[in-house]
């Protein structure tokens, strides 16, 4: 890339990042899997925002969804089932300048990682939290997930899921200090891009539940929604997420929703007859835990030593 200096000489910008800079290994998700589209959106956002790959960290748990770090040309941490969030929070704690992304699944986040989900929302550290929700355990071949609908047939419930599903939106919206909640479907690429970009720009934990196609194990779930777009409720507002014409064509059910209105967001989330997409809630002023956890990172060795000597002196006899 080139720019022009005042003395008319050419300045070579040291670094401009292309999509290729954010791409890792070739994605091995099944053909038709919604995860591909999510990855593409993330690559584009990083490119458009020109985030240096070396200061970007993608953290995940275990599951199909959690393979995402491998397909990124950034730092990655493919950890343990359910434990992406504590690790992501720890990364952020003393390195708040790093751009942290978390990719997790409905089982990873809403089942084995439930405690961390609740508390990470409360910590509200500045990161982007993408839950790839296919309503099933994909990697382990079709077991019931907390978001599998009642009656959905799986290998653990061959007669159909026997409990009504957990509602991740209303749970998240009920957590103290929640600051960003959005929902989107993977089959609306422009909306997906805008929603994730807004979550990424948000200062705090940007929680995005992505309803994701798994043609192998839960095809019927996404198909039924795709075939019945009227069940989708598109949320629009001047302070919300930019919605382009194609999304409006895709989802004709459109309502005005002010994302600063938490009670309205909760009401929308409660109504399970509809699938809201877009921004439910955003509070840019919620405190972020890293302002506390990173206190003192700037201390010099001399200052640390002085503090230590003072501490030791208190016990000196």
């Amino acid at each position, binding site marked *: 890339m080139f720019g022009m200096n005042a003395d008319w000489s050419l300045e070579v910008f040291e670094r401009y990042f292309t999509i290729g800079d954010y791409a890792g290994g070739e994605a091995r998700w099944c053909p038709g899997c919604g995860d591909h589209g999510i990855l593409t959106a993330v690559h584009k956002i990083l490119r458009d925002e020109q985030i240096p790959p*070396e200061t970007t960290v993608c953290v995940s748990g275990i599951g199909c969804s959690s393979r995402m770090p491998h397909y990124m040309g950034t730092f*990655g941490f493919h*950890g343990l089932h359910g434990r992406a969030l*504590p*690790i992501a929070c*720890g990364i952020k704690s003393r390195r708040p300048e790093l751009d942290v992304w978390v990719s997790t699944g409905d089982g990873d986040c809403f089942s084995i990682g439930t405690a961390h989900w609740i508390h990470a929302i409360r910590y509200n550290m500045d990161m982007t939290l993408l839950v790839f929700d296919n309503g099933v355990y994909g990697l382990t071949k079709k077991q019931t997930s907390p978001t599998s609908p009642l009656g959905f047939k799986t290998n653990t419930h061959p007669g159909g899921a026997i409990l009504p599903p957990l509602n991740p939106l209303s749970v998240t919206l009920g957590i103290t200090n929640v600051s960003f909640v959005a929902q989107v479907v993977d089959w609306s690429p422009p909306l997906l891009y805008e929603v994730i970009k807004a979550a990424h720009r948000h200062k705090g934990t940007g929680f995005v539940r992505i309803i994701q196609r798994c043609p192998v194990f839960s095809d019927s779930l996404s198909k039924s929604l795709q075939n019945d777009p009227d069940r989708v409720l598109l949320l629009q507002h001047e302070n919300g997420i930019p919605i382009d014409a194609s999304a409006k064509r895709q989802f004709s059910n459109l309502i005005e929703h002010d994302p600063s209105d938490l009670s309205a967001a909760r009401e929308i989330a409660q109504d399970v007859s509809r699938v809201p997409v877009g921004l439910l809630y955003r509070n840019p002023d919620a405190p972020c835990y890293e302002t506390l956890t990173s206190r003192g990172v700037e201390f010099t060795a001399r200052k640390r030593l002085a503090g*230590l000597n003072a*501490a030791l002196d208190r016990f000196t*006899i």
Partner: protein
Amino acid sequence: MEASQVVETVPRAELIHEHIVEIVSDSGEGAQKAGQTFGSVSARMGNGVWTVEIIPAEIKPPARSPAGASGIRIRLGSKHITNMGDQADLVVAFNEQVLYSRIANGAYKSGTVLLIENKWRNDPVAEIQAQYDRALAEFRENGLIVHELPLEEACREITPNPLVGKNMFVLGMLCHIYSRDLEIARSEISIIFKRKSEKVVELNHRLLQAGYEFARESLDLQYQVPPQVEQGQKRFIVTNGNTALGLGVMASGMELVSMYPITPATSASHYLADVFHEVGGFVHQAEDEIAAIGFAIGSSYAGKTACTITSGPGLALKTEILALAVMAEIPLVLAIVQRGGPSTGLPTKVEQGDLLASIFGEPGDAPKVVVAAATIEECLHFVVMSRRLAETFRTPVVLLTDANLATGQQPYPRPEPSTEWLAPPIDQTEWDPTVPPYDWDAETGLSPRPIPGMVGGHYVLTGLAHTNESKVAYDSKSNQLGCDMRSRKLAALAGTLKPPKVYGDPEGELLVVGWGSTLGAIEEAVDRAREQGHKVSSVHLRFLSPLEPGLKQIFSRFRKVMTVEINYSDDPAAPLITPDNRRYSQLAWLLRAQTLVDVDCWSVVLGAPLQPGMIHQVLLQRLASMEG
């Protein structure tokens, strides 16, 4: 040290070289504060000191109950003191019931002086009067020298609320009995109550003075304990082991402790929560132990090696993610303050039951460094060492301490830290992209570590089997190589260690091997046996994984080798137990496997620190059976 001020002799005071004092009460009566202050005063006067808390298992046990015994033991002497010793010489008790549990623990002997609150003799409840009379008759029968004293009544002359003031009154009494310098005691009181008002400090000074005079007038009991000679001009600090752990975290330059509360580990984090900000650090209280270690691992991965502190049940929860740190070679310090197990076990009491869980607790092969502090001073220095080992060897390091070290207090040389102790600033230089993220040295398994922020350093860390490029690899060769390399690091570390020092002669009849907080008690027992002419020596291990080198050679110079530990082993004389099915104590398991020497063991799980007298008896028995 202010030893020089007190060399003047006190007339009439009996010269002694060591005493064990206990203050026992219901919980909440301030016995621990009085005892700790007495210990600090004694340390400042140049005595060797070891204090150990007597902790009830419940937060609010019923008053006047044996199970509620709360208090403190202070062992002071003219030599360096390394353990709690055997039976007490003098006990101050606020009621008679709490003494029963101490008696059941063998804390007293015939001749132990008991100073007891006598208000119960006239208690309005007849049953209490009767209990008191019965108990005292019993105590006298057992040889205790009983002085019944109106402690609360005497305090009431100073304060309308003697219940909260009598601990400082007792401190004053002890200061007279042991010829302590009241000026030092006054300054200690000023330090303890520095956050309280001037009035509170002044009241406690008056209680101290009153207790001092009360003892002078009502007791014909005075001792003098000369200071240690060997301490010289060095500066000393007095802390318990958990405070030492906290100081070690700060001295290591680690900036983050991530924890979930669990007894007896929590007080280390309490201490840090108070002062960590002064060195720019932060204590994160996580939602559970898994999150606590996960958070620490995240920070370590990002270049700021962190510490997580827990106890046995917490270790159990952390195992899966600890194995991830091993697998992905993430530096981390995991401090475990051991308590009695299994399960919730004995939350407040000591055990050395987590050694094998620390080394072998994870599914699959998860080689990591495991070290154990043997003294309170080591609780501090070993954190500094652990952080360095973790980073050099790119591995988690487990640092074991226990409830005995955690709550024991002792003077030790004040560390003189330098910037080299601290973690270096994170490396953000460019990474040569031709160097893989696990550029294992084929011989040592060591490799440099890319850190987020390094241009060209990006890689995807994974807990799956991987190549040196950190690429997921399920093939046989890659898995074998990864396992080899991670294990090789322990061999490389072992190569840098020296064989342990033998305490006593390098050859003889019986060698005792120990680890952790039992050091002082074992060596004192060995001393006693050697004074009787027995050829006994001991070795105390600090590195448990890898084990220190040269053990087999050391063992070969003794007719018999045995471990002494605070964890479970079958008594060989118990029903059904045969040499074939006997379950050995944990270090014995390890040493037998590693050295193929027929290492014997003696271990108990009494929820109490080992006393030198107990160990001495065991040594004599074993020696006798060897002759037989």
